[in-house]
């Protein structure tokens, strides 16, 4: 599903401030697999996630998701790739506080080439799957932390992505909500989603059937 070969990323290349964030990363992730990128802050796991998500480009190496060479996409195709293939879940939820849960979940579908009815079906399915359907009309600002993260999950699922990328998704959750979030991810994996989580939360290591990939100083620590 996802193949990274010799990926390197250097920030401020060619300047005295040059910083190697990723060094020769090779990683294969199978379809329906859940991979935990584990590392301390600054280890490069979020950079790796942003490269898989076509939010930034590597300095060298190749990134293949499905049959697409993600690292080589133009802006237009990268946008289509993110819209059609990926769902993102962020540490700080990144919800529009003034919009309702339902409207937040509908956002990724605005430019999707689907009918209004199909969009409504997908929104309902995503809300159900993230266990937040009962709050669909509530403004995001009025949700608890756990509910906000479930809303973020529903938004990530709205476009029915093949791949879910989660960046420190439990950092703002208490242990009970973090556990609920992990259970939710396991359900999604069972539905065939490929999931990559960048985190330093040890709770993910306790999950069954996940692969933990430690990242240290921009390298995969074998």
């Amino acid at each position, binding site marked *: 599903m996802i193949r990274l*070969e*010799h990926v*390197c990323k250097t920030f401020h*290349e060619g300047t005295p401030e040059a910083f190697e964030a990723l060094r020769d990363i090779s990683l294969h992730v199978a379809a329906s697999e859940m991979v935990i990128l584990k590392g301390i802050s600054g280890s490069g796991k979020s950079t790796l996630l942003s490269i898989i998500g076509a939010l930034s*480009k*590597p*300095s*060298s*190496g*190749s990134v293949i998701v499905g049959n*697409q060479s993600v*690292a*080589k*996409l*133009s*802006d*237009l*195709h990268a946008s289509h790739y993110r819209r059609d293939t990926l769902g993102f879940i962020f540490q700080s939820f990144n919800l529009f506080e003034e919009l309702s849960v339902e409207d937040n979940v509908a956002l990724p579908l605005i430019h999707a080439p689907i009918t209004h009815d199909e969009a409504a079906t997908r929104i309902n399915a995503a809300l159900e799957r993230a266990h937040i359907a009962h709050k669909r009309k509530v403004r995001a600002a009025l949700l608890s932390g756990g509910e906000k993260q479930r809303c973020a999950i529903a938004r990530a699922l709205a476009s029915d992505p093949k791949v879910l990328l989660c960046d420190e998704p439990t950092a703002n959750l208490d242990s009970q909500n973090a556990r609920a979030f992990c259970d939710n991810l396991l359900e999604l994996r069972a539905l065939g989603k490929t999931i990559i989580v960048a985190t330093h939360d040890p709770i993910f290591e306790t999950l069954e059937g996940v692969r933990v990939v430690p990242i240290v100083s921009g390298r995969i620590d074998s």
Partner: protein
Amino acid sequence: MIFLSNAVIVFLLVEALLLSLLLLALYHVIPIIRHWDFADTSPRQYALEKRSYLAQLIIFFTLAFKIALLPYFAYMIDGLSLMVPGAMCAAGVLGANDYGAFLLGLKVAILFGVGLWIILNRRDLQASDYPYTRLKYLLFLALFALIAFESALDWLYLSSIATTTPVSCCSSIYGASTLGSPIPFGLSKEELLILFYLLYALCLVAALYSIGWISLFANAALIYIGYYAVVYFFGLYIYELPTHQCPFCMLQREYGYVGYAIWGTLLLGGFFGIASALFAPLHGSTTRALYRLSALCNTLFVLICSTYVLRYYFLNGVWL
């Protein structure tokens, strides 16, 4: 002394600025042409992709500005007629030395090249694997050479305009004093008009059925015949004078600046028609859009020209 005109100073400064930007783009473009290999995943290729992004952005901005600079050039030259003795419009100023007419032709040719580059760049960015990157930068090299030559010619031309020597203007350049018929192929005005409308119809048919080679031929011919039709037939109705034949006076305020619309739609229609033929092998939505734009611009051009004739006839009951 012509440099005392603010319009000329602004024009030359903008030209110099644009050329500097293109020079900057050239610095990035040369390594791209030499080393571009999209399949490569080496640091050099990624660096080239970044440079290509920057270069195409600079080139697009600069070339888009060049398009706006042609009507400004026409406006500036028209304004200079106040400073050149004997000149009543841009015709006299362009004829003030040997460079003027050639320079105007060169500017139009560059504009066609600029349009092709913009379309090619758009196609390149829309594709997933940048298939036209090398081609578009090779075209840029040719354009850069032409634009550098044009800039030098701008200086030569503007610095060679004498403000003390009287020049001939439209009445003698395009007027009755011209030996023989000025219309090509010895056509009469009626024959010129029939050919004009036939070519327009052919352009429409080519656009409607997306026939590239007919579009290429018909649009190129319409530009050529359209120019003569405007100068020697439609112009009479714009000026409402049976003896006034000039392609430039219609750019002036007293004629509502209609010349900009007439020449603009003729050149744009011709460009889109020719470009649609050149890009026909790509079979994309770009080609269909070009055909539509060509038909639209040509129709506007013909409508504007024809309206003047009909309006004159309905108001006065006679033809000129």
